[in-house]
């Protein structure tokens, strides 16, 4: 048996990307871990130094951290949940034949490529308490009697930002699910027709089971992205009023802006650990299909 010579060319080809990756991802992650054990506040540079688990203990007693964690949970559940249902509905529609379908398909993806800042600002203008168009529409239809400052009061601010993130995420789900729908052989539906199945039965017995993997993967990806999203909330409310829209990512970002980097790093590490559960599920799925 002849031993194959080790070919180093693939390693050479990968090395530039790997080098950049190590420098801008791995090194920072390592630094974040180090910073989480330090009192690292750029406003007080003379006091920078290791303090052990102190940051972690402070976080454990930080009621704002727990509140932000809870908000993150609600943000993901409602945000991703509605993105999924509305995106699924849109995909089913776009899979039907109708006039102008091609244009509708492209145009309905635009929210997905719109900058997060712009999304936040567009919606902020729509929600505006004085000149906002949403108030005007609701008043015209007599749904409300007085103008509502949607983003300025605690009761409405959180649902309002959730609607915005739902709006942003519908196209992504629609895109993924539509691709999945197009991969389902039409014979399955023909056979179901012969057996006299109705639309609902076809949906639950053919469409959804066939799309299981697509749904699983796109939901996992979306959970990670939505949980990490900062720009939409930050530019709509900054996390307020009274922290009612502050998710963990926004909290970290706000802390980073105050230059308390040690505390911010510690929180971001906790967020990463929580999200890694989702990430591991995703990777397992990818590697499983790689082996097939």
């Amino acid at each position, binding site marked *: 048996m002849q031993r194959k010579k080790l070919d180093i*060319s*693939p*390693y050479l*080809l*990968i090395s*530039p*990307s790997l080098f*950049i*990756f190590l420098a*801008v*991802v791995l090194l*920072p*992650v390592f*630094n*974040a871990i180090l*910073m989480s054990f330090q009192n*690292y506040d750029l406003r007080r540079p003379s006091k920078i130094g290791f303090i052990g688990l102190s940051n972690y203990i402070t976080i454990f007693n930080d009621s704002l951290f727990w509140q932000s964690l809870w908000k993150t949970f609600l943000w993901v559940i409602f945000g991703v949940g509605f993105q999924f249902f509305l995106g699924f*509905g849109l995909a089913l*529609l776009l899979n039907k034949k*109708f*006039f102008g379908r091609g244009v*509708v398909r*492209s*145009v309905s993806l*635009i*929210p997905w*490529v*719109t*900058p*997060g*800042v*712009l999304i936040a*600002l*567009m919606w902020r*203008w729509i929600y505006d308490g*004085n*000149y906002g168009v949403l108030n*005007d529409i609701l008043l015209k239809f007599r749904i409300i009697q007085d103008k509502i400052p949607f983003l300025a009061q605690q009761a409405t601010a959180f649902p309002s930002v959730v609607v915005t993130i739902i*709006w942003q995420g519908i196209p992504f789900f629609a*895109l993924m699910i539509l*691709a999945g729908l197009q991969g389902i052989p039409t014979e399955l539906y023909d056979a179901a027709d012969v057996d006299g199945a109705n639309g609902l039965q076809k949906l639950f017995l053919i469409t959804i089971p066939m799309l299981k993997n*697509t749904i699983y*993967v796109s939901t996992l*990806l979306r959970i990670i992205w939505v949980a*990490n999203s900062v*720009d939409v909330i930050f*530019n709509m409310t900054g996390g307020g009023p009274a922290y009612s829209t502050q998710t963990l*990512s926004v909290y*970290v*970002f706000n802390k*980073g802006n105050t230059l308390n980097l040690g505390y*911010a*790093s510690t929180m*971001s590490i906790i*967020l990463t650990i929580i999200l*890694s559960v989702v*990430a591991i599920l995703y*990777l397992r799925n*990818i590697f499983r*299909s790689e082996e097939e």
Partner: protein
Amino acid sequence: MKKGVFKLSGIFAIHITVIIYLIFLLFPFYWTFITSIKPEQEIYSNTISYWPNNVSFESYQKLFTSFNFLKPMINSLFVATSTTIISLTVSIFAAYAFSRYKFKGKKYLMGIFLTNNMFPVVLLLIPLYAIMRNIGILYTPFALMLSYTTFTIPFSIWLLSGYLRDLPISLEEAAMIDGATRAQAFIKIVLPILAPCIVATGAYVFMTSWNEYVFAVMFTNEASRTIPVALKNLIGQLGVEWGMLTAGGIITIIPVCILFFFAQKRLTEGLTEGAVKG
């Protein structure tokens, strides 16, 4: 007969639902555009007009005269173009390696690039800020370019290796049997066929760099800030300048839309396949 009526109402229902979706998804853009072409007193009027009574481009004019929006546009263009070129150059080699070679540790190396998608932006943001500050490139375009490669390179590798895997290997093998080296086969055969996919990947990288806010707001200053940061800056200085802000928004999104419509077909194919298959 009855079935015909039923079918007709079904088609009607589809169209109605499509229209409702489109209104929901597109109204914010319509409203932004309409606001951008209203004169100031009409934007802040108590009776809201759904089409401007007087069309005016004063907001656009002000954006370039009193706010100097051109500067962030140039910054954005520079950062996004450089990021695209860097990412594509290094990623295409890596993608070629992942799709054409069998080697030890391939799975783990690929896994390293994939996990990157999972890191919260804020996890990298804080230490990168400290690093950029220490090596003295904070507030320069390089700070942004480097931080954008954290997600553009893994993403490009992932997308490009998907495209390469779908490309039949037989053409390259035929060329190599005819005496071409691997490099020649790559340049003369693979690159031309792959060109549209490279363009699509580049378009996506450009769009994400053009749109990015979180790194941009922390790593730039007055001189180096990009469009998203400039847009946000229109809030707060003298109250909210909704006229200029919406005008800036429209200008920002036009290049993105053009790029997207060009790259759309390949991009959506690559994305949807890649996400599920890996």
